[in-house]
């Protein structure tokens, strides 16, 4: 992205933005312009094809017709039972299903960014764009801060529990569009909420740039579950920069299914600030052709007695690449920590390329920490076992590979979404797995 497109007025609303936000955007812009481009010498970018990461030549979309917007309504339907929903196309709003009056009366806030900034300035000032990634894409977080306009703000007050999820869809449509989706979840003490973010492309052939950010703040004993479905077309360059801050006894789950994009950088960091917190990080990636998935994770334990558990599974077809780099950091004094990290890679093609860097930094001694990384092909003995039951090789392979996916999918806690994802994956890869 050139600085020219950066300076262009993004939406009319930016002109009326409060000074604090304008300043934050200005900082972001400076950050983007001054930080160096990723370099393979940098540990944060080790093994990554940094040459394929250019943000040049993409621009935000300025207008879109109502007719165009309307057609995305019906197609944004992975989850039917929901507490609220937004649909964006090239960062223009196509749907905003507000929350029920009952929830509104309890003080729940679910709003697009601009409205939230206008109606709840103090809340936004405190949380919006305050948690940057620390895993290498700080430069791109800066660009996001400067440009973001599409996204959802969810605030769940103390003690309020919401059973149904909020579902946000982000579509790209135009050629060489840049989008900057944002998810902010603030769950106060003893509250409960779930959010599903879905990333889709309208057309297979149009190139796009995505820099999305999500920030979760989970208060004491809050329960938050965020699910991500990333199925951009394979012309998209995507940065997904997610952070979670977990308070005392908070229970947070992150689950991502990533099957799209040409080049997907996924940074996911969790900071445990409260004792007794329990954070889960699950990811399933299926890669094909020349796709490259670059996953960087960080589990920081700053408080004792907490649990974090990470499971990242990757299946690779064709000459695709995956990079997993994870770090568990247990700070001094964070005793009785249980932290785990597992990366499992299934190589389905001899030309695919798996890179795994599971890391630990432990500064407290009374901890249970372990990590494991395995890479291999489909197990021949298992294949024989299945075939000996009369199952043809192709079907046996499919069963095993989809069985490999199940460990993540079964954790999704929504049979509807799980089934839709199984079908999505089957449609995209079913023919290839044999």
């Amino acid at each position, binding site marked *: 992205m050139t600085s020219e497109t950066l300076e262009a007025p993004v939406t009319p609303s930016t002109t009326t933005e409060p000074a604090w936000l304008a300043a934050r955007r200005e900082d972001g812009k400076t950050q983007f312009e001054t930080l160096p481009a990723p370099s393979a010498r940098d540990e944060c970018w080790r*093994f990554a094809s940094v040459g394929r990461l250019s943000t040049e030549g993409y621009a935000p979309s300025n207008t879109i017709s109502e007719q165009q917007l309307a057609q995305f309504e019906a197609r944004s339907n992975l989850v039917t039972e929901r507490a609220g929903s937004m649909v964006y196309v090239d960062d223009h709003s196509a749907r905003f299903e507000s929350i029920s009056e009952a929830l509104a009366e309890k003080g729940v806030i679910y709003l697009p960014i601009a409205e939230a900034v206008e109606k709840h300035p103090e809340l936004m000032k405190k949380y919006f764009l305050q948690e940057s990634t620390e895993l290498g894409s700080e430069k791109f977080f800066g660009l996001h801060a400067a440009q973001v306009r599409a996204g959802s703000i969810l605030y769940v007050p103390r003690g309020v529990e919401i059973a149904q999820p909020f579902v946000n869809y982000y579509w790209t449509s135009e050629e060489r569009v840049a989008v900057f989706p944002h998810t902010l979840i603030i769950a106060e003490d003893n509250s409960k909420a779930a959010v599903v973010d879905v990333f889709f492309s309208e057309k297979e052939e149009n190139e796009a740039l995505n820099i999305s950010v999500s920030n979760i703040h989970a208060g004491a004993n809050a329960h938050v579950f965020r699910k991500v479905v990333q199925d951009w077309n394979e012309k998209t360059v995507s940065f997904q920069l997610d952070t979670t801050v977990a308070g005392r006894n908070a229970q947070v789950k992150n689950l991502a299914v990533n099957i799209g994009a040409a080049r997907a950088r996924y940074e996911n960091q969790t900071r445990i600030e409260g004792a007794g917190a329990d954070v889960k990080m699950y990811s399933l990636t299926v890669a094909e052709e020349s796709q490259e998935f670059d996953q960087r994770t960080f589990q920081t334990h700053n408080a004792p007695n907490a649990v974090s558990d990470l499971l990242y599974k990757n299946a690779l077809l064709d000459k695709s690449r995956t990079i997993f780099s994870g770090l568990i950091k247990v700070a001094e004094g964070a005793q009785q920590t249980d932290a785990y990290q597992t990366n499992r890679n299934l190589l389905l093609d001899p030309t695919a*390329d798996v890179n*795994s860097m599971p890391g630990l930094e432990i500064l407290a001694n009374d*901890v249970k920490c372990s*990590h494991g990384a395995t890479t291999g092909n489909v197990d021949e003995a298992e294949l024989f076992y299945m075939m000996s039951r009369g199952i043809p090789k192709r079907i046996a392979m499919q069963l095993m590979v989809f069985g490999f996916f199940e460990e993540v999918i079964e954790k999704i806690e929504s049979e509807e979404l799980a089934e839709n994802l199984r079908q999505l994956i089957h449609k995209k890869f079913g023919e290839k797995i044999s």
Partner: protein
Amino acid sequence: MSDIDLKEQKEAINVDTEKGNFSYPENYEFDAGVGLDEDTVKYISDVKNEADWVREFRLKALDIFNKKPMPTNWATEDLENIHFDKIRYYLSKGQQPSRSWEEVPDDVKETFERLGIPEQERKFLAGVEAQFDSEAAYSRMKEDLEKEGVIFVGSSEGLEKYPEIFRPYFGKVIPSSDNKFSALNSATFSGGSFIYVPKGVKLKQPLQAYFRINAENFGQFERTLIIADEGAEITYMEGCTAPKFETATLHSAVVELVALKNAKIQYITVQNWSSNVFNLVTKRGMADEGAEVKWIDCNIGSRLTMKYPGVVLKGKGARGEVLSIALANNGQHQDTGAKMMHLADNTTSNIISKSISIGEGRSTYRGQVHMPKHLKNCKNNTECDALLINTNSRTDTYPAITTRGENNTVQHEASVSKVSAEQIFYMMQRGLSEGEAMSLAVNGFVNELMKAFPMEYSVELKRLIDMEMEGSVG
């Protein structure tokens, strides 16, 4: 418990923890002076009366060393505390290594006697080389091995007398440009062992080298090259100590192993440098078809050790192994690991790393497993286990694994644990002291791995661990 308390306790319990902590007055014929430039390198080359190609090799390496930045983009900032301009790069008494201990100068002989080297030689070694600062003071191998064509000499002698054997492999397994410290060694190397084991010759007893630093502000840069010809087998052991000086000492070795078809090389290190030594060593072996290279690496001493023994699995069916134990006490950082480069089908590698961090000690594992090409049926297994003794102990694990190809399996597992208060209580209830209980638990932690070591070394290692563990509980 403060550092001072720990130290006092240790000294009260067993003065032997300071076994290597003594030195003799300096008395050197040749001294390259302080600091490093072209003249320093030329001086070393002149003293050794080297061939032009060796001198060129050194000067080229110096250039690389000067150009390469410190690897602080991934390694510890403590490297910045090495002052290359304050180090002395070559010190020797200017004599050939003696073939009998009687001919060794008294102070040097006494040094090695205090370290028990002549005794070990009599007991179980096939040959010994004892290096004092820059050059070997003693070098001897059993006569029957000489008759079989085994060559066991210092680096200078090896390059001078047997260039046809050593030159083809010298600097080939580890090029000068591999890293900043391999470049430094290539520019200033002196001493070390050059060994050639002819086809089919299998050494029943190990050869040993002992590296001793005596002088303050000194840098020791020995260079070792071991070639096991087809079907040959050799075990080589090295030990090292230095006195505890006020200022930092640098030890930066390069060790290259070449195992030709079906040969086996086992290389054992017990590093017990004093806690002011920067120990920055590059070690790598090349394994041809059916060959095996095994590194057994124990790091007990030093201020900072950075060492990642590697094996380049070049021929089909080659095997590589790194078994390591690191013990990081207060003020120490053991930054160790392993590298396995799989370059042929059916190659297997195994890495087992056990580390123990005591007090504010820090142990780090860095690993690299690389199966970059379209290989078949390769296997790697890596296990890293860390034991943390005190609440402020630290451990890190940073593996990097790249896999491609068919029917390859790579498995990495790491765990972190501590000795539980209940375990200690249980053992104390049976009448053990707290320190003994802790030692027992730590020995249990490394026990499985130590079984793979030759007996003499596991005994020595157990003794060293016991000593380090004394007074660690608090």
